[in-house]
């Protein structure tokens, strides 16, 4: 267990987008499904600031292995992700490592919004608003790689600030991200990325203004 699990560890990347093999602009509110090979690096850029990017990682080729929030948190001894955090699978394998981070805090507990949970959290009449669960389901349906609803495990919310207070409250705080801040991860194994660029308009996770982000891949 590391003593620095809760610390913010800012680290800039030596990589230049000029040498990237792929640059992908992810529109606000939309899903994306893609694959990284072991050794590849992906940078997620918060283009306009305070945009929650909801991501689940799956081991490519083995649908039983996926990012595990609980294994990841237990392994590092704390709830926040930042430079040096290793994303661990449900089978205990290192899937990705955060190698750079200019934001400093990413959420592991807030999960992804859904029409159904919106009815509980906000109002019954919110059920037809666009949401991350719909994005996830549609992206998995179109990917058709055998992943489905049962595989929608607790996700990471990059750039989202969900502090747990000393008295045990889970709070959705204003973000600490800003335009151009980024987080960079190196794939340790072949992984699928399932992304929802969160469309939530009912809480400040996107500053009430969902915006695009960029994925840069080397």
């Amino acid at each position, binding site marked *: 267990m590391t003593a620095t699990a809760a610390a913010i560890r800012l680290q800039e990347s030596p990589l230049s987008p000029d040498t990237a093999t792929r640059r992908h602009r992810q*529109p*606000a*509110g*939309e899903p994306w499904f893609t694959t990284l090979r072991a050794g590849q690096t992906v940078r997620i850029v918060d283009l306009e600031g305070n945009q929650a990017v909801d991501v689940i990682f799956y081991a490519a080729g083995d649908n039983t292995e996926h990012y595990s929030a609980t294994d990841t948190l237990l392994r590092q001894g704390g709830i926040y992700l930042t430079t040096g955090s290793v994303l661990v699978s449900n089978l205990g394998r290192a899937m990705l490592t955060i190698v750079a981070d200019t934001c400093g805090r990413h959420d592991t507990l807030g999960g992804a919004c859904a029409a159904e949970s919106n009815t509980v959290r*906000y*109002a*019954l*009449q*919110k*059920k*037809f*608003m*666009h949401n991350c669960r*719909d994005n996830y*389901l*549609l992206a*998995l*349906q*179109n990917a*058709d790689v055998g992943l*489905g*609803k*049962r595989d929608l495990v607790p996700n990471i919310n990059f750039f989202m600030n969900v502090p747990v207070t000393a008295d045990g409250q889970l709070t959705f705080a204003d973000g600490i991200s800003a335009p151009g801040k980024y987080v960079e991860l190196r794939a340790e194994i072949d992984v699928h990325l399932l992304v929802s660029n969160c*469309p939530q*308009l*009912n809480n400040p996770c996107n*500053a*009430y*203004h*969902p*915006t*695009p982000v960029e994925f840069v891949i080397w």
Partner: protein
Amino acid sequence: MEHPTHTLDNPPADQPVDAPALWRRFAPDLPAERVVWSEVVPGGGHWSWRLSRGTALRFVALDARANVSLVLYAAHNLLERYNMPDSLKAQHTAHYRAGHVLMSDMGRALASFTLDTLGWHDPLGALLDTPTMEAKYGVHRYEAHRNGMHRSGRDGLLIETGKHGLTVRDQIAPVNLFSRVVVDGEGRFVFDTERPVRGAQVELRMDLDVVVALSTAPHPLDPRPGYAPGKVGVAAWRCGPAPADDPCRRFRPETARALHNSDVFALS
């Protein structure tokens, strides 16, 4: 940044459940003691429900351009599902109206048309996909339009069926309620834009326990310009299983046998 108004209209804590009896506005003839729930699905919206045998869904077109792309799966085994060709050939029909049943691939009635003010609902299985939608109406995605974005029927049904563990391989041809497509002498589709649809009602009684998924996106053959799918009122009420003198049983020998097959299954 000014917050969108819909972030500010959450119900007050002293009245936490904002579930108005919407059915009283669009289907006030329903027996109040038997109504289970009601919804107004916005145009382009999608949802799904698990419903018990003996429950009816009343659909009411609240705008002129309402369409409901609807699919049915048997709840006991999602491999049993609505089958378009079996339903059409068994009932010798290319349209649905009161009396018809929606048959599964297992020869059972999943649902029956117990009420209908239009006389024709499109059974030919058309479903709007996103490329077609964007080519026809332009690109209206979330980033620029938020919840005013255009939604396709195919994506809506993929999301809803995915909630029940079904995948793209399980997509089936839907029924399109409130739409009428005729086939001309040369076999070409002609979508009826003249028929008044606003206020029309149609009701489906569930003859088995089912999963129903729907999208209120436009019918793909609707030639009218602009993406403007109508709102649809939906109310569920306990109507009970088909009685012995049910009009759908008497409609045709085939509907009688399909409903008999459902009875046998339900009683077994």
